[in-house]
C-alpha cells in the first residue's frame, strides 16, 4: 500500500470512521498472519493474536505519529500481543500441522507432487528447528527472513537499539543452526 494512501486512511480512522480501517486490515493481514503463525506455532492462536492486535492498534491510533510508517508500529503491537499470549495460559508455542491452504503456494502445485513433498519436508524441519529455539531468537528470525524487514524497522518493532539487531540475528541464526544439527540436518 502506498504510504500516502496509508496515511490518509489512518487520518480518517483517527477522525472516528472505522470503515477506513478495513483496507489497512486487509493489507496487513497476510504478513501479520505469517508473523503470528511463526510466533504462535498454529493458525488458530495466530488468528486470535492477529485479531486482538488489529483491535489494539485501532484503539491506539490517536497516539500514532503520522510521520512514521504504520507497518513496523503495527508489527510491534502484534509481536507484543503474541508474547503476552505465549506468556499467559492462552497458548504455548507448539508446532502443529499447518492448514493446507496456509502451506500451499501456487508454484508448488505447478511443480508437481514430488516438489511439493520436498518443500513441505524442508518446511517441517525448519518449523521444528524454530520450535527448539527461544522466543527472542524466533521473533527476530521471522521478522528478517519471512517478512524481510530492514534492521532499522526490526529495531523499532523489537524496541531495541539498531546496533543490537545484527548481534541478535547472529545468535538467533547460530541457535537455529545448532537446533538443526541436533536434529541431524546437514548444512555446509
Amino acid at each position, binding site marked *: 500500500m502506498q504510504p500516502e494512501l496509508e496515511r490518509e486512511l489512518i487520518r480518517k480512522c483517527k477522525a*472516528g470512521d*472505522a470503515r477506513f*480501517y*478495513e483496507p489497512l*486490515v*486487509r493489507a496487513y*493481514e*497476510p504478513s501479520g*498472519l*505469517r508473523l503470528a*503463525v511463526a510466533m504462535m506455532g498454529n493458525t488458530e492462536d495466530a*488468528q*486470535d493474536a*492477529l*485479531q486482538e492486535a*488489529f*483491535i489494539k492498534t*485501532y*484503539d491506539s491510533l490517536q497516539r500514532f505519529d503520522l510521520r512514521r510508517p504504520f507497518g513496523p508500529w503495527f508489527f510491534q503491537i502484534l509481536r507484543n500481543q503474541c508474547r503476552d499470549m505465549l506468556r499467559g495460559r*492462552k497458548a504455548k508455542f507448539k508446532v502443529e500441522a*499447518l*492448514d*493446507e*491452504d*496456509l*502451506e*500451499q*503456494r*501456487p508454484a508448488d502445485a505447478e511443480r508437481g507432487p514430488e516438489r511439493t513433498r520436498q*518443500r513441505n519436508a*524442508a*518446511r517441517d*524441519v*525448519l*518449523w521444528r528447528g524454530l520450535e527448539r529455539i527461544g522466543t527472542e531468537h524466533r521473533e527476530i*528470525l521471522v521478522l*528478517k*527472513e*519471512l517478512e524481510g524487514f*530492514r*534492521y532499522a524497522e526490526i529495531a523499532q518493532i523489537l524496541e531495541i*537499539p539498531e*546496533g543490537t539487531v*545484527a*548481534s541478535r*540475528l*547472529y545468535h538467533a*541464526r547460530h541457535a*537455529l*543452526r545448532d537446533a538443526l544439527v541436533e536434529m541431524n540436518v546437514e*548444512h*555446509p
Partner: protein
Amino acid sequence: MSEPTPSDDLMRYLDGELGPEERARVEAALERSTELQRELAIFRALKTDFQELSFHPGSHRRSVWDDVNVRVTRPLGWVFLTVGAAIWMAYGVYVFATTPADPWEKLATGAVAIGILMLLASVIVERYREAATDPYRDVQR
C-alpha cells in the same frame, strides 16, 4: 555504543545492510578467513531454507476483518445507548418529580424503579465477575 564485531558485520553483509566501503572491508576479511567463509555459507544456506518456509495465506481463509469491525464499532453503539438512556431517565425523573400525584403513589413507584435498577446492576456486576474468571470464555460456540 559498542563497536560492531566481525560477526555483526557478517550479518549486515549477509542482509545487505552495509555501505560500499564496509562491504569491501568485509569481503577482504572473508578472503583472509576460511572460518568466516564457512560461517557465511551456513547462514546463506539457512536463508535459502527460509524461502522454503515462507507461506501465503489461502485466499479462501476467512478474514479477521468481520470480527475486528464488530469490536471496533461496538463501543460507539454503547456510547449512543448510554447517552440516550441517560437522557430518557433524566426526563422520566423530571416528569415524575413535577407531576402532581399522591406522595404514597410516588414513593411506591420510586421504590419499584430503584429496586429494578438495583437488581439489574447486581446482575451486570455478577456476570462481569463470572466472565473474568470463566475458564471457558475463549471456547467458541
